[in-house]
């Protein structure tokens, strides 16, 4: 009974989440035009972990995060202004990127993965693998 009610609420929620993601997307485009790729990435990553169970929402969020990731040119510079609270969620998206097999995406994700691992350590990789509850 509880599960059915949850699914019902989720369907409603999914629409709300998609709208929020579209809103994020517009904000990101604007930030990229202003040459603020790190701000764009932070915006993309925000609100990504909780409550997104629906596959459509996950895909929509990935598109937005992917856009921001590919726009990063200076990886070292990015890390000097990216707060550590974003490290774990970023690592999850890097693995999603690596799983696409798309050459430019994988190149970029590997580049960022190397620097992120230096900063955040193997523990960050562990958390992205072990968390099966908040899968992105």
């Amino acid at each position, binding site marked *: 009974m509880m599960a059915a009610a949850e699914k019902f609420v989720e369907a409603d929620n999914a629409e709300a989440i998609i709208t929020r993601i579209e809103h994020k997307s517009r904000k990101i485009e604007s930030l990229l035009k202003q040459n603020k790729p790190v701000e764009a990435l932070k915006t993309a990553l925000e609100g990504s972990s909780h409550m997104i169970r629906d596959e459509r929402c996950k895909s929509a969020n990935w598109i937005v995060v992917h856009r921001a990731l590919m726009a990063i040119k200076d990886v070292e510079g990015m890390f000097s202004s990216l707060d550590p609270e974003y490290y774990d969620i970023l690592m999850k998206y890097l693995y999603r990127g690596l799983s696409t097999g798309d050459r430019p995406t994988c190149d970029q994700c*590997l580049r960022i993965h190397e620097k992120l691992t230096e900063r955040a*350590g193997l*523990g*960050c990789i*562990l958390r992205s693998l072990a968390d*099966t509850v908040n899968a992105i």
Partner: protein
Amino acid sequence: MAAVAVHQFAQCITCHAWSPDHSMVALCPNNNEVHIYRLVNDKWEKVHVLQKHDQIVSGIDWSGKSNRIVSVSHDRNSYVWNREGPEWVPTLVILRLNRAALCVQWSPKENKFAVGSGAKTVCVCYYEQENNWWVSKVIRKKHDSSVTSVAWHPNNILLATTSTDGKCRVFSTFIKGVDTRESKTGSSSDPKFGEQIVQLDLSSSWTFGVKWSPSGNTLAYVGHNSMIYFVDDIGPSPLAQNVAFRNLPLRDVQFFSEKMVIGVGFDCNPMIFAADKSGLWSFIRFLGERKESLSGPKSGSQFSEAFGKLYGQAKHGLSNDTVEPSKIQGAVHDNCINCIALLNKKGSETKRFSTSGMDGKVVIWDLGNQQDLKEYL
């Protein structure tokens, strides 16, 4: 150097426990036996081999006052071993498990012991004088998966468990005739056996290694996601701190004071966690020597080769600093540490402990000359 003694006992050690006067150590060399070694003239001699189990011995505990050894095994049995003259005499304790026993611990008063199992149950065993045997009472239906570790609160009644279902739970194990009801104490007013006091759902992955602080006010346990959890105020509204760290996951922890915990695990080097004056826990440093790596995977780490190949796909050439060893330089253990035990001499301030691991070594550590840790001890 914090490590004061290193001894290679076997190829791999499953678990270990010390005799009351610390002159002997009981360990399982990753087979179905318990080997007891005694330190004689600075050399370890094997003095007993306890052979009763059919499969790997997954847990050993040696009671400090009553000098009894309890062993549990994947063969679903447990034995209590009593010293009679020169021999160790086993008594089978029927647990009625249909899966492996995974961990065991004597209660503080040593009149009970708890066994965690792969059958998603916890067996609490006590001695029945009239029938001269050990009786097992089972806590069922609460765990969703294997119980990986058990820990007794100093009050001899509360028991904490961790499980591969990602949760840490605290139960009452009050047994009529064995425990005395303490009326009007703060924590649990009406403890019934098997009653779940609290369930902590902080980790999204397997949990291991739960321990209570000396006063019983704080609980610590680890997750397989490279996190360690500290919980105060066990009850309806517990206060939890989730500490993420940058290294490989831990397998076991031990409190050294109300404010200091040492964790051991896949980094093969004990990790020190401490709470500051406001009660905020954080990682302080590694205890053993460790080659300082400026740029993560590039210097002398066992992962450097693998990472080099991974990143090499995005670059034109491999970095030239990614070199050798599969061994972590400067580390004492060279494989996962899965067991940590206290070795305090009564009345002495020196904090000594031992670790054993999959490299088959038992290492004894002394915190005495670690100046920066004195404020936490």
